[in-house]
């Protein structure tokens, strides 16, 4: 099974978790990663700028119609739902918040599951609410791979626990173990 996109959802504790996870990935990691992170306190912040210098991958904010490229990390822009189309370009929406969140992880996971099917890997990390659980289940339903951070490893465990209460993901583990899994997936993939 070849994975063409990795969709990551997180809220509270996410900035640190994402930084650690990215640092654990090999430099030649080619599968594009999309991060949907809630930012309750500062709605105007552009995460791609926050992370840009700290990562060994090119980092962009996901703007409307941008084409997804290999070896790149994208962040959902604050204030918009992020979606992805079948032609592997981003689209945005200002539909109502979901789980009080815009961007919502569920919204991105669902769109990604529809667009990528079995070629998608969804990852749910530390976070303070249930956003992402339902979306991750949809990813599994459409044949994608699902990874959840072990609640014991997560800074805030509500988000991983909500997923585990809903269904059994393919893998539950620490950030380090998740990084290994992703690296394995990348090896088995014929990513363009």
């Amino acid at each position: 099974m070849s994975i063409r996109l990795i969709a990551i959802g997180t809220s509270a504790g996410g900035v640190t978790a994402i930084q650690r996870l990215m640092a654990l990935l090999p430099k030649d990691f080619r599968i594009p990663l999309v991060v949907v992170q809630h930012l309750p306190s500062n709605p105007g912040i552009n995460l791609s700028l926050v992370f840009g210098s700290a990562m060994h991958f090119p980092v962009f904010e996901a703007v409307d119609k941008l084409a997804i490229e290999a070896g790149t990390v994208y962040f959902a822009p604050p204030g918009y739902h992020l979606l992805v189309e079948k032609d592997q370009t981003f689209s945005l929406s200002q539909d109502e918040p979901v789980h009080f969140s815009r961007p919502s992880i569920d919204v991105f996971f669902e769109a990604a599951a529809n667009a990528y099917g079995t070629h998608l890997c969804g990852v749910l990390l530390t976070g303070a609410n249930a956003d992402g659980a339902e979306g991750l289940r949809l990813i599994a339903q459409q044949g994608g791979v699902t990874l959840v951070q072990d609640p014991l490893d997560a800074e805030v465990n509500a988000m991983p626990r909500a997923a585990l209460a809903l269904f059994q993901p393919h893998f539950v583990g620490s950030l380090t173990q998740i990084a290994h899994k992703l690296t394995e997936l990348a090896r088995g993939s014929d990513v363009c």
Partner: protein
Amino acid sequence: MSIDPIERHLFLEGIFLRFGHDFRLYAEASLNRRLNSLLTRFQTDSLLKLLQRILETPALFRDVLPFLTINTSEFFRDPTFFRALRENVVPVLKTYSKFTIWVAGCSTGEEVLSLAILLKEENLLKRAIIHATDINAQAIKRASEGIYELSTMQTYNRNYTSAGGTKNPSDYYTAEYGLARFDPALLENVVFSEHNLATDAAFVEAHLILCRNVLIYFNRDLQDRVFDLFTSSLAYKGFLGIGSKESMRFSPSATHYETIDQDLKIYALRSDSATVRNQINRGVQP
């Protein structure tokens, strides 16, 4: 629930043929979400069954349309955009004795009022004709009333100042019974009308077009059409402002514009693009 692509196709085609509203070139992923909530609202699991009901009872369409559009708006949204308008566009507008502005996709009017307030503070409101258009007739009606929940005034107050407002934000409305009623004089030179960017033609020559957070709902083909429509609707060196996460760089139209503000998405028609405009107007592919 995932939307069946064949049913979706037939549904959108049917709506277009019967009502003339063309959603066929909307961005799929977000339209799918809207279609899902439409199915929930009409308590059915099939777009085909729903289409049949709508075709039998066309009056239902009035309740369908609002589900297909997203009308989220905010006063002075992205306040820095309005600051940039003051800095880069207002000085040019000041050189005209009369000018025209088109707000495309005006929704419930927050953007039009913000613009009118800005123009008033620059002593330009009396020189302006503002055309505010949308496909959602209910939204237009609300926009033309200029009345909002008092609770939304918090955002207004906050954004007004960051947008470079120089007065007391509450100078422009009166509060009564939990509602904020904006000074009707602000909307005196505003013409509200229904206009569909997907199907309707150019109807003004504008010195400034604002179309923010509308293009994100369209696919690239439809975006290209709309950019063409704007190119053919802009006066010599006219300005175009789009949403902060929208971009013209994926469209062939980009070559006809120069970038005035990269981050805030303000563009101006290049002075040499008059021929392009004429070609578009005559239906020739530039």
